[in-house]
């Protein structure tokens, strides 16, 4: 991956909106309000991976990775198997620290890992949330890019409170 691309990825994954930095106006924006609930008992910040797969299950873009040391990456099971372990550069490029329970506003351009705009078609948003000494949840939201804005409510799971996913055209 080229350095300039790494830089862009880092920005997008720190939770900042990219709109001010993009050299060109990209048509589609993906906005996620991710809600990590308070948990009872011993609490470690969750490891979180947010990524897009195509309809065949192939990852096309890792949007965010909140993690601790490399030793724990394997515990983000699906993301590690499908994406992380095959692309050390990508992991380095997108890494960000873990966050405590709370409400997070994330915003991403609708592009793939090579910064190419996503074509119209079917995709799956995946959010994998794993806590050490806690549970694991896999949020899966299929969507179709049609050129129209859309809004999805992501039902609560044991590791995520109700969240919102918006496609803004």
């Amino acid at each position, binding site marked *: 991956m080229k350095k300039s691309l790494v830089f862009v990825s880092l920005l997008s994954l720190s939770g900042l909106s990219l709109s001010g930095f993009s050299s060109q106006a990209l048509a589609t924006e993906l906005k996620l309000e991710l809600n990590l609930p308070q948990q009872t008992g011993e609490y470690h910040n969750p490891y979180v991976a947010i990524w897009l797969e195509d309809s065949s299950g192939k990852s096309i873009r890792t949007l965010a990775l909140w993690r601790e040391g*490399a030793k724990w990456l394997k515990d983000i099971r*699906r993301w590690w198997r499908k994406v992380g372990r095959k692309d050390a550069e990508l992991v380095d490029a997108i890494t960000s620290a873990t966050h405590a329970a709370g409400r997070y506003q994330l915003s991403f351009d609708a592009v793939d890992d090579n910064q190419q705009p996503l074509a119209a078609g079917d995709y799956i948003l995946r959010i994998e949330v794993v806590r050490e000494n806690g549970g694991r949840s896999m949020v899966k939201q299929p969507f179709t890019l049609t050129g129209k804005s859309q809004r999805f409510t992501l039902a609560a799971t044991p590791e995520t409170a109700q969240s919102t996913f918006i496609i803004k055209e």
Partner: protein
Amino acid sequence: MKLKPLFIAATSLLLATQASAHNRWLLPSHFNLSNDKGEWIMVDVTASNETFFVDKPMGAERMVITGPDGKRVRAGSLYKGHRKSVVDLQLTQSGTYQLQLAGTPSYFTRYEVKGEEKPKFMRNVNKQQRDARLPKDAINVETLEGYSNVLSFVTLNSPSVSFPLSKQGLELIPVTHPSDIAQGEPVEFKFAFNGEVKAGVNVEIIREGVRYRNDPEALELTSDKNGAIKFTPKQAGRYLLMADYQQDVSDYALADKVGGRVFLTFEAVLD
């Protein structure tokens, strides 16, 4: 292939006796790891019919560890207890390590004595040695040369493909990478005997935890003409795959039948 009824009976008897030998397996503490600084794992080695509950120790010092670069890796310390051996192993390279207990074949002579109901067996006696050892009234004598191949794969970071094959005995050829097995996703393996893919390899696949369920839920498969089996693990967990193959040989000085068994331990990760 058409077989005469007498031959089928003899074969099934021998298979039954082979099946009564203890299963053997290696159980790594971890199958998939992430760490750019390397990791330690530990490996249990045991002969046990209960999947992933240890029973009898096996010689873990014979375990051959092959690193991602195809070179042999030296194990760390080794402990041999009454129920299992344990090996410490440091993984320093990214990629897939093969852990294997294989090596020289063992010989097993079966015979019957007129008037006695049950067949008798002699371990470590080949066809050349057997005449001196058999009683004079022994009938239906048959010697099996059997290879055993106990193995597992462990991956640090990115999986690599280094699956050394000896072309001796029964071997498993991964089509699906053993570190890429996941709940709900199809898996394909092939089997070769002495380097040739074989149909008719009998395979049993069992998930851990049989002690805590009534039905062992064993999956039984037979390899097709390409030597292949295909299956999809419904649940995440650790699995033991056991494969068994035998064939008749003529004009072989040491045995009437040759065969091999494979014991592969793998993990199906949570999807």
